[in-house]
């Protein structure tokens, strides 16, 4: 049996997950990161903080979320039984709220009056604006111009929540550039502003902090699954852009024998435009941490592509890079068309409209289910709901001709 690192002991004191992670930022931000780390370590052990967060997660965000046996979908796939962890049922409609409630509560405790965030699909922006409204804090969200176009309902929603939206037009005008803009802005107002990062990416302590706020997904799922079936699932499946929903589901299962599959966006195909950072990238430094990145031979960051704005990112959380290298988690990729097929299939078979991000995980789960016996079970993180994606999905040039057969007969 392969010996894995002791994941519970990572990151180390300097924020490294093996060779990955760290704090690669300009000196101006270093003191703020050190202060944040100190504050985060203190609230991890603070019973009052943890109690307040628990109440928020229950009464405000709607936790625990359901564990649902998607039996009609499973029957169609004709193999292993598929279960869904329903993060789409949380307040604001995605797992992102778990993290923003934690970070905004921390910001409030630190006496910050203002939060900023970057967003791709808009789910993290909405979740941050929501938490900021709940705590009466000012909120500015940086969003790529291209994503503003793709995710109009979320933009309108953030504005209603009182957030300022800054349209980022540089570079590819997507999540990567929104994060660049947020980092620049934070550098200028680091003394009174808290930066709420939405994924297990960025400089230490963000990958650790976001993991700790998201692992509630896996902790709940583990208990629910045990109660329901008396055992463990055979396989966990989750989409990976930056990787927070996957980390949230996977982390509490790392010390078990459960298999795990992270699903990246293959976009138009792995030889064309895609966002499969772990599968096709190489080790580099982007947005404050060392991890796999999509880059040229000269170390210039490449443009990522996915139909899903939340996966359209040329980087990935450093802890996923470690999981990949040591083999604890397997990673695969799903194309735009396959994801749209799963999007249609879940809606038709179960009456659940999944986010395009989550549709990537679903598509991979369906393909896996077909290969496995009925006695096995697969747990998918249904990380968000798809209302925001309606226009974007239906406008896809091939949407009308995409059907479920594509996945079921693959």
């Amino acid at each position: 049996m392969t010996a894995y690192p002791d994941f519970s002991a990572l990151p180390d004191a300097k924020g490294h997950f093996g060779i990955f992670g760290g704090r690669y930022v300009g000196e101006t931000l270093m003191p703020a990161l050190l202060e944040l780390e100190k504050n985060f370590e203190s609230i991890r052990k603070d019973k009052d903080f943890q109690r307040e967060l628990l109440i928020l997660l229950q009464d405000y965000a709607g936790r625990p979320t359901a564990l649902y046996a998607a039996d009609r979908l499973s029957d169609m796939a004709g193999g292993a039984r598929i279960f869904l962890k329903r993060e789409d049922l949380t307040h604001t409609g995605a797992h992102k709220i778990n993290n923003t409630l934690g970070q905004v509560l921390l910001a409030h405790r630190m006496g910050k009056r203002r939060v900023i965030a970057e967003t791709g699909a808009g789910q993290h922006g909405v979740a941050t604006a929501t938490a900021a409204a709940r705590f009466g804090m000012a909120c500015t969200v940086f969003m790529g111009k291209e994503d503003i176009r793709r995710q109009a309902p979320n933009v309108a929603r953030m504005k209603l929540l009182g957030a300022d939206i800054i349209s980022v037009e540089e570079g590819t005008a997507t999540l990567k550039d929104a994060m660049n803009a947020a980092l620049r802005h934070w550098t200028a107002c680091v003394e009174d502003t808290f930066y709420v990062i939405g994924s297990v990416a960025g400089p230490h302590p963000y990958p650790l902090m976001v993991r700790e706020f998201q692992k509630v997904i896996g902790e709940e799922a583990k208990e629910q699954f045990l109660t329901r079936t008396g055992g463990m699932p055979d396989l966990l499946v989750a989409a990976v852009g930056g990787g927070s929903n996957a980390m949230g589901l996977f982390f509490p299962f790392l010390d078990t024998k459960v298999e795990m599959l992270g699903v990246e966006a293959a976009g138009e195909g792995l030889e064309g435009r895609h966002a499969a950072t772990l599968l096709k990238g190489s080790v580099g430094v982007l947005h404050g941490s060392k991890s796999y990145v999509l880059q040229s031979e000269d170390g210039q960051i490449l443009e990522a592509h996915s139909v899903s704005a939340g996966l359209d990112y040329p980087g990935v959380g450093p802890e996923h890079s470690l999981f990949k290298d040591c083999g604890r988690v397997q990673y695969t990729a799903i194309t735009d068309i396959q994801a749209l097929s799963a999007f249609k299939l879940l809606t038709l078979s179960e009456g659940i409209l999944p986010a395009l991000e989550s549709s990537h995980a679903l598509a991979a789960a369906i393909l896996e289910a077909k290969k496995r016996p009925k006695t096995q079970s697969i747990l998918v993180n249904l990380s968000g709901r798809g209302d925001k994606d309606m226009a974007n999905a239906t406008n896809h040039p091939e949407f009308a001709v995409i059907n479920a057969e594509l996945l079921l007969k693959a």
Partner: protein
Amino acid sequence: MNRIRNMFEQCRNRKEAALIGFVSAGDPDMETSRKIIFSMLDHGMDLLEIGIPFSDPTADGPVIQLASQRALKAGVSLGTALKMVKEIREHYPTPIVLFSYLNPILAHGPEKFCKDAAAAGADGVLVVDMPLEESGELLPFLEASGLVSIPLVAPTTPEDRMEIICRNAKGFIYLVSMTGVTGSGGLHTDGAGAMARKVRAVSPVPVALGFGISEASQVAALVPHADGIVIGSAFVRVIGETADREKIPAILGKMTKEFKKACTHSR
């Protein structure tokens, strides 16, 4: 390394601050960039910072970000930047510091980068997203190649941390004059000057102030408090805004002369 030390010593003897200029290698194109740099050196630039373009320069404001984009569009890579250093070194003894983000250096290979940079004639390297804590993988190679790592100190840096950075410093300290990215407006020269005095009191090496300094009057106000003044975005903005590229070298030469004059006047 000796070139940096000697230059600061000569400036001190002449009772003037060193003028440090930043341009992005290959901005707006290789040929014009070479002419710009030669013109700046001919007009009294004391130290040259050459930027290696990067697609995602998060510590820079829009002016230098655009310069990076122009250079990348012109096909400039880390390799072409090193070629430019070599060419300058054939004609000028002026100290040269390479200004880069870490990723292009890692892609080139940290050890190979240090060897190549030293061979080209560079004296130091400033990696903007490599704080002290993460310098372990580059520092040994820099030292082995005889290059210095130029550390940053920021207005947000607490005193104890500043002392640690200074204790390890070689070459000079790059003191960030304001909380923000490069090319920001609203510099308070009084505050920046006070900060520079504090850092100078503990630093064994010269202290240069940079970020947001764009006018000769600001330079003159800061010169009594610092060993060097860094001008970047003010030069780069002109490169970006001047349609007739042939005119840029002369304009930047003239600007260099004016800034250098401000470096000598008030001491």
